[in-house]
């Protein structure tokens, strides 16, 4: 078959500039025409954008990485089940360097540049406190997973929520009876010298006093410290329990040096898992922790009585029975805290659905819908356990685990009840203007 006219020969058909321009103009006109289909489509199926303020670098980096993994797993689960209000969820990550000033900038960037619907995911309390004013100013809901008492203290603002993890004041109050009854009555506290540590410094003494026990010494350690032996002589000789909560990259050194200092002849130890998050408890030098107790938000090691929801959550995030990444036993998770990311995202989903959330113009509605929540039932969306939520102080309340180090694993020996951790609200965010 001969193509005599050269019809199929592309080299011969010259596309004139005029034609090209016409085509382009027509296309452009169609795209910007009011009522064009693509636009109305965008209203319903454009993703919900969640700005994730992540500690990718700085002293919180190990937490940040696991917060990202947990968040990715939760978002995948939410999207696989149809998203939020039928719209997919998209997470945009910005690194805050675990730094309060940078944190505030990141919140601003989410609000004005990425135009995300909410900001989410912050752990370190000084970053939360530093970023909260920026969120309030931009009137963008700010869901933190921090465990500090700052949100519940009602000293931040109406846009800050902590619905996925309990706060330190509640944790301490619910565990103090166990400490006084099982560990000892004379307690020395060792804590990091910044906001999160101050929650422990301020709330442990009254909580223990109520149980007939006393804090006999309080030792504050700068968060960037890398050697700790020099602080140990401050521990009074009559100490029965050392209550330790440390954060940052030097936590392992802290526990090791405590071991070298005391050897087997040590007081009882009660620690917050923060002292060993992302650290293998079977690391060399930690043998002396055997028999000591830890607070755990969500147990690192799989427990015999784990619920189906807990098992499904662990599988989705990709941690094995020892709380390490599946396939890399050395990559230990921050299990005590990261479940909060999972649960917070489901709270956001619930609140957005209750509010009929459509876009940033509905942010105030989202705040009110979140405040209206009261209870989260245990299940796939809340694998750590059941929780109640106080909309006036933007804080959830739940159960705490006390675990014992036994044979190189952490075994949950006591679970507190939600009521153990309830306290009188110190204020009311709902009276603030939106």
């Amino acid at each position, binding site marked *: 078959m001969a193509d005599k006219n050269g019809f199929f020969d592309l080299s011969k058909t010259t596309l004139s500039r005029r034609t090209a321009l016409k085509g382009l103009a027509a296309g452009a006109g169609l795209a910007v025409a009011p009522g064009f289909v693509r636009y109305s489509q965008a209203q319903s199926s454009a993703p919900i954008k969640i700005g994730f303020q992540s500690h990718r670098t700085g002293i919180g980096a190990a937490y940040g990485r696991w917060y990202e993994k947990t968040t990715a797993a939760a978002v995948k689960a939410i999207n696989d089940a149809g998203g939020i209000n039928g719209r997919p969820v998209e997470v945009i990550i910005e690194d805050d360097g675990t730094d309060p000033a940078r944190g505030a900038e990141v919140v601003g960037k989410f609000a004005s540049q990425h135009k995300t619907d909410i900001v989410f995911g912050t752990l370190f309390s000084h970053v939360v406190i530093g970023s909260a004013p920026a969120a309030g100013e931009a009137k963008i809901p700010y869901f933190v997973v921090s465990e500090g008492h700052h949100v519940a203290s009602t000293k931040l603002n109406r846009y800050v929520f902590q619905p996925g993890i309990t706060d330190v004041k509640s944790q301490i109050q619910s565990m103090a009876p166990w400490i006084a009854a099982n560990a000892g009555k004379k307690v020395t506290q060792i804590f990091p010298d910044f906001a999160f540590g101050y929650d422990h410094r301020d709330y442990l003494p009254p909580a223990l006093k109520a149980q007939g026990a006393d804090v006999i010494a309080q030792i504050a350690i700068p968060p960037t410290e890398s050697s700790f032996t020099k602080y140990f002589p401050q521990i009074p000789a009559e100490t029965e329990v050392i209550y330790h909560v440390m954060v940052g990259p030097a936590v392992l050194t802290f526990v*090791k040096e405590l071991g070298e200092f005391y050897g087997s002849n040590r007081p009882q130890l009660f620690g917050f898992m923060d002292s060993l998050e992302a650290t293998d408890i079977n690391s*060399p030098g930690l043998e002396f922790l055997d028999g000591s107790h830890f607070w755990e938000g969500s147990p690192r090691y799989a427990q015999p009585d784990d619920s189906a929801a807990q098992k499904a959550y662990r599988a989705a995030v990709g941690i094995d029975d020892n709380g390490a990444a599946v396939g890399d036993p050395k990559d230990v998770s921050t299990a005590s805290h990261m479940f909060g990311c999972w649960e917070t995202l489901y709270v956001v989903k619930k609140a957005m659905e209750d509010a009929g959330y459509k876009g940033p113009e509905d942010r105030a509605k989202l705040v009110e819908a979140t405040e209206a929540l009261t209870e989260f039932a245990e299940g796939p969306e809340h694998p750590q356990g059941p929780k109640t939520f106080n909309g006036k102080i933007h804080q959830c309340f739940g159960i705490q685990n006390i675990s014992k180090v036994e044979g190189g694993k952490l075994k949950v020996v006591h679970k507190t009840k939600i009521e153990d951790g309830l306290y009188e609200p110190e204020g009311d965010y709902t009276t603030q203007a939106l």
Partner: protein
Amino acid sequence: MHFGPHLLLAALEGLVTSAVLALTALGLSLVFGVMRVVNVAHGEFFMLGAVLAWAISTAISGHPAVGFLAALVLAPLIVGAIALVAERLVLRRLHYNPEATIVATIGMLYIIQQLALTFYGPEARPVEPPFTYRILLPWFGYSGYKLSVIAASALLLVATWLVLTRTKIGLVMRATQYDSETAQAFGIPVDRVYAGVFALGAMLAAIAAVLIVPISQAHYLMGQDPLLLSFIVVIIGGLGSLRGTVVAAVLIGLSDGIISVFFSPTLAKIIATFLVAMVLVFRPHGLFGTASR
């Protein structure tokens, strides 16, 4: 705890700090003294030493001492090689211009730090000490390994001193430090001396890091404190003075240990910084430095 044992603990802690600090600061001081450039990335060579020590000791199975000794030999060599490459690629091309070098080494600091974050990760990882002997004193227990760090550091300092004062390499280095132009005129390959000194400085930092890493873990941000303290030591001790560096390191380490045990760590830092200010005002060339000609 009574005053006596308390002071003993403070002094021991201070000596460990001094030992590591002396090695790190000596590296900075050599580079400073011979090349007349400020290496802001010095702390990152320290960090690299620790990170490599972790990598090497985990790659080698068997008794922890084997992995540790391998790390003690290999990590400084690798860090030295990296420093050599950095010197060839960056410092030489800037003709060792003091201002340009500061900016360039700040860049190197961030590059090395971020590469460590990317390839090593944000975790603090432990290295097993070659031996775990716990010395039991009547009042408290103390890590035998920490005492061995003091001894190892003292040996290395003596070795460095011997190299500087008794060997031809040392003579060449001192000649370059004294007057690089005249040294060149006398046929000393100043270029190669510079490269060698830069690598040696980084290696000293890496050795210090390998020694400290079984005590405090390897972490990608661990280079910041040693850098600051090394600067303090070098300024107090005097540029390029080995004796000054060691004396200042012991002074800063002990005062840091003792003041932070009896008072507060913040006060220790305040005093160290104050000392720097005083030295800069009253003896700008340091306690043992020679005034620039």
